[in-house]
């Protein structure tokens, strides 16, 4: 805090004269309570159990967005790089950063009215904490002890799977967050055409007892699995308030004058080499393919500038140094290296088989583009379609593949943890010395360069998350970990709020009656 009277005598602007047809007559406006937010997501199903989420999966990120409605974390990170108290009000660590203590917020209740205890925290976090970290209760909170220093523990706890919940006897999970799960219906056959599934729905309603205050919205209705084009139409005609937009439709949405928000790059699209196909493990083949990939064209033409070329494993917003890597396209060099390989490797009779794990036209188009680039370096690539169960439920045998097109969603606020997760995903050995506990960026950079040098994973593109937002949605903000702060969102109906009355609904409002 400081007085800045002398700091800034800013005689500001304001020489603009404007016609004002209808100014509000209040000194300041305030958010309005009430209303239902209609949210449409393309994913077909959701898991609200963090223990089931797979690190780095796109599905886990979608799950976390909805889970953030009903669960809290120990701490959060604000938009200004400051850790803020959530279920923990204070925290301390020793000089080695191995031992951390957290003091819990008093009087926090789960949505069934029962009190949050330190034991709940331990039970929720222990299954998801990385190896080497042990959590236990203390007199007024919890302690987390590491066998090694964990200076980035707060970054970890403020992102990813580290939500606090309680498992009930029936297996359902309870949270302390701003909303609670009210209804959930699975996809059902349509009456007119039973072969067509009606999308699943989830309804959340406001938690009147939320420790951070009741959210502005009364409820949130989520529709899962609607096609993207239908979602865009629904947003246009006012049947939806928030939708997720795939990158290949962002341009259309903007041309349609929709309000589109984009995140920092959140998903890495990459090629992962596997040893299942002979020849795929040859480092010369990997280097030749790496040098043949035209990432700029993929980002700028195929994805119409809605993606960025990926020069590294970690995005720039997380590491701060990704620009140092650069994208290495060099077709002549790729051809030279290819010429040193046996003629039958990745050739016409035995092409390198590329499997596209994710469903969707975009991934298929990207796979085809990879094949075109590879062909320019005399490397034959054959796309293998997404494997789906047959009508008998059996999975047809798929040919061994040497290459996968994968999507990796960044879910940690710690670059060190994210790189460790990626290394784990690649089954790459990372020694404790290699990835330092001090967060030394030079060693982090060195380790990332080493992983890139192995070329087990060739980064292609970085995709932001795109969200379409109705004009009536106010206070739209997103946490640094990518969670939508829907507890702060309110709906502006265009009618002025009364200035001299309290607009917070009563704790037990009559059904259908809202301010």
């Amino acid at each position, binding site marked *: *805090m*400081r*007085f*800045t*009277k002398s700091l*800034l*005598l*800013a*005689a*500001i*602007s*304001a*020489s*603009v*004269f404007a*016609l*004002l047809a*209808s*100014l*509000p007559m*209040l*000194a*300041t*406006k*305030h*958010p309005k309570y009430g209303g239902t937010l209609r949210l449409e997501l393309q994913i077909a199903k959701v898991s609200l159990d963090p223990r089931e989420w797979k690190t780095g999966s796109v599905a886990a990120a979608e799950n976390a967005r909805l889970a953030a409605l009903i669960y809290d974390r120990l701490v959060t*990170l604000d938009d*200004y*790089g*400051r850790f803020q108290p959530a279920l923990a009000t204070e925290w301390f660590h020793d000089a080695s950063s191995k031992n951390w203590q957290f003091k819990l917020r008093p009087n926090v209740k789960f949505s069934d009215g029962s009190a949050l205890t330190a034991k709940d925290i331990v039970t929720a976090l222990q299954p998801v904490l990385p190896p080497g970290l042990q959590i236990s209760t203390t007199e007024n909170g919890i302690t987390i002890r590491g066998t090694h220093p964990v200076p980035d523990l707060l*970054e970890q706890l403020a992102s990813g799977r580290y939500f606090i919940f309680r498992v009930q006897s029936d297996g359902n999970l309870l949270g302390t967050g701003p909303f609670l799960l009210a209804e959930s219906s699975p996809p059902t056959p349509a009456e007119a055409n039973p072969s067509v599934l009606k999308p699943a729905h989830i309804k959340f309603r406001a938690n009147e007892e*939320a*420790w*951070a*205050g*009741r959210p*502005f919205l009364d409820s949130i209705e989520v529709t899962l699995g609607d096609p993207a084009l239908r979602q865009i139409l629904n947003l246009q005609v006012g049947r939806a308030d928030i939708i997720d937009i795939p990158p290949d439709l962002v341009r259309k949405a903007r041309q349609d004058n929709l309000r589109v928000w984009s995140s920092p790059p959140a998903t890495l699209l990459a090629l992962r080499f596997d040893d299942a196909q002979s020849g795929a493990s040859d480092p010369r083949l990997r280097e030749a393919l790496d040098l043949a990939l035209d990432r700029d064209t993929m980002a700028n033409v195929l994805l119409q500038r809605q993606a960025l070329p990926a020069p590294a494993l970690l995005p*720039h*917003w*997380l*590491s*701060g*140094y990704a*620009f*140092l890597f650069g994208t290495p396209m060099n077709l002549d060099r790729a051809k030279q290296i290819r010429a040193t390989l046996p003629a039958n490797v990745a050739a016409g009779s035995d092409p390198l088989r590329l499997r596209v794990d994710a469903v969707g036209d975009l991934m298929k188009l990207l796979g085809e583009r990879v094949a075109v680039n590879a062909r320019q370096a005399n490397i034959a690539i054959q796309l293998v379609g997404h494997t789906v169960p047959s009508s008998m439920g059996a999975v047809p045998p798929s040919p061994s593949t040497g290459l996968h097109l994968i999507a990796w969603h960044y879910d940690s*606020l710690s670059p060190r943890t994210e790189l460790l997760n990626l290394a784990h995903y690649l089954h790459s050995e990372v020694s404790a010395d290699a990835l330092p506990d*001090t967060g030394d*960026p*030079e060693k982090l*950079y060195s380790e990332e360069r080493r992983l890139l040098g192995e070329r087990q994973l060739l980064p292609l593109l970085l995709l932001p998350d795109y969200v379409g937002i109705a004009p009536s949605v*106010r*206070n*739209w*903000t997103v946490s640094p*970990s990518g969670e939508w702060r829907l507890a*702060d969102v309110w709906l502006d109906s265009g009618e002025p709020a009364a*200035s*001299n009355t*309290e607009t*917070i609904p009563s704790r037990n409002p009559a059904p259908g009656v809202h301010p």
Partner: protein
Amino acid sequence: MLADTTSLDEAISQFVERVAAIPNLRGPLRLQFFQDASFATETGKDWQETFRKEIEKHHLAVTDDPAATPLRVGLAETPTQLVFSAGTRVSEKDEVRFLTLPRTAFRAASLPVAPIRIERQLVYQSQDRILDASSLWNGTEGGGMAVLTYHNAAFSVLRLDSSGQSTQTIPLAAAVAQASRDPRGELTIRASDGVVLLPTKSCEFTWTASTEAKCHAPKSVWRTATVLTPSCDAGGWKLLSDGADWAMPDVLQVVPDGSLRQGSAALLTDFPGPILSINGEQDPASALVVTKNLRTGNYEVYKITLACGN
């Protein structure tokens, strides 16, 4: 890790020392800068120019010659840190150097200054949520101010002297209420006492007595639009804010008061975040405006004075 740096220039100086210490690094160097979009307007070219000057101090010449050794230099904002990075190739070897500092240590640049019509002066800032502010000077400079804060569902009134130091804190223990995502409160200061109006209570306190504030059911209505009357215009100008979207910078609108001039014209001034309160009760020519700076996250109090002439 540079733990306690508060000046970007100091950080750049230390970073350049590390870069200049790269073995066998010799000029002339061709600098290639990379920076986050978030720095484009605030620190902008400043840090690049500072870097250039610092590198020249180390007797490393800088050139635009495309044949010169490139030195790639970046400044990025990660979720928790500012990261300076530099990379070059020396004697067939890649060399990189880094310097990081916590984002919270970064001192944001001043807001830009524009021609005078409305005088705007940042008089106080705090990480604690400020709901309202009132001057104490009654038209006389040097009296300080009072701010109403909200922290952990508790309200307090802070009395600040002219240097911004807190001289008195009056906790409104009797006003503790259910936690709210939109805490509201208005502060009215009289000669030796004050009133805090809350959604469900009205609390009175005195600066002189050590007794706690007394709260009772509210009897007043919320403040309506603030009207300022500069010495050259007795007609009055109304201060209005445009919206309540906490994610958007706000605009303070200054419109002529009175039916004859209503809706005809306005002066506008941009704020670094949403405007949370406007209080012009103490001085006919100035008001205190509370905003949340979306760049820094701090709550800021500005003194708005309508200046006569241009």
